[in-house]
């Protein structure tokens, strides 16, 4: 399929993957180049949080702009998925779709709020405790809401697989991504409750959850070939 024939929802699915992944990668590279964070594999070593890549300029400009833009794309993705699933015309599910999409939208707004406070204005951290707490709370709520909504949506997509004509392999990919998110979230919450912590724990989970949720957004690309923005002819 050529780029020219790509539907708008497909472009949204692509953007929801590439914008955050490229943004985080670029801001991390700039932060490392500036000598503010070590060069490592954060997925394994947990050596730098995503937040840490958005403190020093110019990396902070990129993280702020890229993630705020990503959040809008996430909102559009949820709007698309709602309209897509509503096309099965099961009236009893409409309220459910609306609720999940609203929760995911609020989560996306929270990540914008979380990102705009980042920058060198947060240094030294002891003088800006409120803003740091605000950032940590809003970012945490985003990850929680986003992952839970994706997990719930996977369950519903499986139920509607036949009506929606979703390929079995596409559902399996979504289920794997949703299960991994569930696993990471459960372990993180469990460890927090029992008070167990290892070095780089937050960074480790943050990078994995961000990547898994981006991959989940991308997975809709294969489902949305026949889901397009179009101008319907009005009846006379």
């Amino acid at each position, binding site marked *: 399929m050529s780029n020219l024939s790509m539907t*708008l*929802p497909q472009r949204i699915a692509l953007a929801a993957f590439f914008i955050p992944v490229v943004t985080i990668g670029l801001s991390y590279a700039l932060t490392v180049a500036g000598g503010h964070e070590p060069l490592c594999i954060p997925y394994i070593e947990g050596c730098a949080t995503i937040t840490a890549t958005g403190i020093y*300029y110019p990396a902070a*400009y*990129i993280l*702020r*702009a890229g993630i*705020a*833009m990503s*959040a*809008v*794309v996430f909102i*559009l993705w949820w*709007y*698309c998925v709602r*309209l*897509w699933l509503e*096309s099965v015309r099961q009236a009893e599910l409409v309220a459910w779709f609306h609720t999940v999409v609203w929760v995911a939208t609020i989560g996306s707004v929270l990540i*914008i*709020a979380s*990102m*705009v*406070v980042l*920058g*060198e*204005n947060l240094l030294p951290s002891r003088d800006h405790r409120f803003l740091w707490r605000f950032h940590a709370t809003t970012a945490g709520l985003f990850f929680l809401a986003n992952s839970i909504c994706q997990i719930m949506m996977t369950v519903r997509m499986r139920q509607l697989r036949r009506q929606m*004509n979703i390929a079995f392999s596409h559902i399996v990919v979504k289920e794997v991504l949703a299960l991994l998110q569930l696993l990471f979230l459960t372990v993180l919450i469990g460890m927090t409750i029992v008070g167990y912590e290892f070095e780089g724990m937050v960074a480790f989970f943050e990078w994995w959850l961000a990547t898994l949720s981006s991959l989940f957004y991308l997975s809709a690309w294969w489902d949305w*070939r*026949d*889901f*397009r*923005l*179009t*101008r*319907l*002819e*009005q009846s006379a």
Partner: protein
Amino acid sequence: MSFGQSIALISFILSMGTIAVTYGVATAQQTAAICNPFIDGCTDITHTGMKGDAGFIFRGGMIAACAFFVVWWVNMRVWLTRYAGKIALNSMQFFGTLSALGLLVGTAVLIPEKDATRWAVHVKGANLFFQGMLVALTINYVLILKARNKGLSVPSFRMKTALMAILWFMFVAFAGVTVGIEMSQGKRIIEWWATLFIGLYFLSSYWDWQDIKLVHTSS
């Protein structure tokens, strides 16, 4: 409400709402002067969105609005596809998207400390927004005019005509909407009005895009 109408509405409410809330918070926190900036030109939009909580609101709201502007141009392209050539549509969408990205970059570099702000980037980004937007909207208006003559229903045509006339009058009479670090009172007034009129142009498509929808055509 159709997808197209939602995008038109959000593009207006988010951009204008962000500026209004930013100004309200800035005046409440005394980082901007209290006045009617559309008449008095006591401050420019940029300086209301730099310091304090107003800065956070401005950066978050305007960057998000820029993303919606990009989608607004996609909608406009779909709406005009059957009535305009590919080159004209590509040009329109290119300048529209470029101007939105200019504003996005110009907004992202704003920080509370005026001396440390990368003004060159901000000024270029903001000017790219205003000049690029005028080019994109002009192409858009001409395409709509031609499409209307071919039978396209354009409920907002009078509103769009009035807005284009005003924007061009401002451009010719005041040598364009040019943003700088320190702007004259007149330039500041023009900036506020031009921003409002561009926002209204985005909103005007709400009445045109009732049939711009996302449709699942099962194969």
